[in-house]
């Protein structure tokens, strides 16, 4: 919602700003509303944490259109950095937050540099392979640091001015702070020079390069920002769990992050929230159907893609790329798509000149569904 307020460029009380403010109030009051019930607070924590992970991947996947299906590796880097330094050297968890972000960001740069020229499915599969190598490395207890398949135990809780954030409600607010920070970065970047460059690269890399954008550098930058924020999420995750193990950062976690971004609507901030709700919160609420949960989940991923290939709440600019990016002139093949034809036309017009930044209302329309 904040995005639309920002793209609209208007000051004052737009509808989406009011909505964002209400959402924030609700988030702040949530612990009191559920009576400080640990179960619901934990769901809230997970919602925020995964929204942060989704947003961080969104810089790479939605921002520049680079397929990264190994994002869990950066999450793991942040968590393990925190865990190792905290348990070995007793450095406070909160002090380690920037360190975790830095290590994960540097890892992301190191990974992205050599593979940046790859596209599409090739990039996708390289990131999968890379994340698997990270997981196997952690499992093999390299240098005796990562604790093998049992992971690392006894990570401390965060401490602020002598106050230990040990209760679930404290951790809930910590994750909310993390989310707000991430949102701030995401919104500011989206409309900055960097964000514009990213979206040009996503729409047409050759054209972007021809316009003088150093595409390689901007693509690596997207990895750096996304990786660093995932590392920050890893820091908070480690502090909350106090125990981490390699299996928490498997391919499945990467798939969930990927699906959050795509199902919600690639490149769209409200979409990430919707995607997180669908991928993380709904399955937890349906615990009772534990056995069939994942079966339904897989089927839902397929069905959603068939009926809404642009995601639930697509980014206006991105929708164009999903429809026409790879194979033009086949739009008609995906018959029975709810969002009809005329909108595609407006989307194309707006996508041509993102600078004009029109049509906040058009962006809002699919959300109303």
């Amino acid at each position, binding site marked *: 919602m904040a995005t639309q307020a920002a793209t609209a460029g208007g000051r004052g009380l737009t509808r989406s700003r009011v909505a964002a403010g209400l959402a924030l109030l609700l988030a702040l009051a949530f612990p009191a509303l559920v009576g400080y019930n640990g179960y619901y607070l934990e769901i809230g924590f997970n919602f925020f944490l995964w929204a942060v992970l989704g947003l961080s991947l969104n810089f790479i996947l939605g921002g520049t259109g680079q*397929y990264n*299906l190994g994002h869990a590796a950066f999450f793991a880097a942040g968590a393990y950095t925190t865990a190792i330094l905290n348990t070995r050297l007793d450095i406070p968890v909160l002090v380690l937050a920037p360190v975790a972000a830095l290590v994960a960001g540097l890892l992301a740069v190191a990974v992205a540099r*050599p*593979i940046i020229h*790859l*596209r*599409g*499915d*090739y990039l*996708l*599969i*390289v990131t*999968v*392979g*890379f994340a*698997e*190598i990270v997981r*196997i*490395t952690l499992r*093999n207890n390299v240098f005796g640091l990562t604790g093998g398949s049992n992971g690392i135990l006894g990570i401390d809780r965060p401490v602020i001015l002598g106050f230990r954030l040990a209760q679930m409600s404290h951790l809930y607010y910590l994750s909310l702070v993390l989310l707000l920070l991430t949102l701030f970065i995401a919104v500011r970047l989206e409309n900055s020079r960097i964000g514009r460059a990213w979206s040009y690269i996503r729409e047409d*890399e*050759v054209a972007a390069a021809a316009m003088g954008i150093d595409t390689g550098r901007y693509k690596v930058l997207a990895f750096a920002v996304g990786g660093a924020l995932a590392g920050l999420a890893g820091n908070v995750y480690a502090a909350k769990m106090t125990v981490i193990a390699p299996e928490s950062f498997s*391919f499945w976690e990467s*798939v969930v992050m*990927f*699906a959050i971004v*795509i*199902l919600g609507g*690639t490149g769209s901030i409200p979409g990430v929230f919707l995607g997180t709700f669908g991928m993380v919160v709904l399955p937890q609420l349906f615990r009772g159907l534990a*056995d*069939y949960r*994942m*079966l339904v*989940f*897989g*089927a*839902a*991923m*397929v069905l*959603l*893609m*068939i009926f809404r*290939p642009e995601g639930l709440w697509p980014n206006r600019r991105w929708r164009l*790329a*999903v*429809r026409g*990016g*790879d*194979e033009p002139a*086949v*739009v*008609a*093949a*995906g018959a029975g798509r709810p969002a009809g034809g005329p909108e595609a036309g407006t989307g194309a017009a707006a996508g041509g000149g993102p600078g004009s930044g029109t049509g906040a209302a058009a962006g809002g329309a699919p959300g109303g569904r």
Partner: protein
Amino acid sequence: MLVQQVVNGLTVGSIYALVALGYTMVFGVLKMINFAHGDLFALGAYLGLTFLIWGALGQGTGGLVGVLLAGLLAALSVGLAGVLVERVAYRPLRGAGRLPAVVSALGMSVFIQNGIMLIWGAFPVAFPHDMLPEASWSVGGVTVSLMRLVILGGSLLLMLALYLFVQYTRLGAAMRAIAVDHETARLMGIDVNRLIQLVFLLGAALGGLAGVMVGLYYGQLNFTMGWLYGLKAFTAAILGGIGNIPGAMVGGLVLGLAETLAAGYVAGEWKDAVAFFILILILLVRPTGLLGERVAEKI
């Protein structure tokens, strides 16, 4: 010792190659990674086990004929499952771009994997080891068991048959045609949808058969096994040059060899990482693979 390792590596490699064929064929005609292929492979392993047990209940023992029959049945059912997957999850998305297809394939993978878990249970299942007669031959210090011979010989024969089919039959030619261009192929009177179904049928059937072979070889099944084997087989496909059928065979054999030798001479616990190192290396250095002539990625 070395020669024995090579034999072991080739045996595992031939299984990878069989699974890799499914990836490479689908990538060839649809330009998509069928993430559910690994899980179809796992489904084949479980179905094979079930058919074997049924057969064994009927006639007393498994035996070579029993194993072949169970493998055939498993291949056939998985082949049909592959056709179903294509019809349900991929065809409706065929014009929608890459990302929706990736997510749909991942969703299908989750669906099949959890379906297997619901039917056969979440715990590892033992695959009877005594289904094949315990015959083995020793040639110059190298032991070759009947099981290895069935796996290696069987998969090489199947791959040869597939290659001949694709190269020298009308259907094979049509398949190669749609790999180049759907629209033109359609104008030439080729039923593109039927051909794609055939590709899924053949690819999934070979994957299912490979699943049965893994069961025979390792004697244990796990409902998540499809993911690791799938990714390794995909690596094999990339290694050989994706979209290229002889490439998948070469890639599979090379990967099996590399992995077995690395496990034997470097470090066993890094065995699973070898495939991924190779994957990354090959994509950085030679994205077209060893035998690939295809352009890696269109702009």
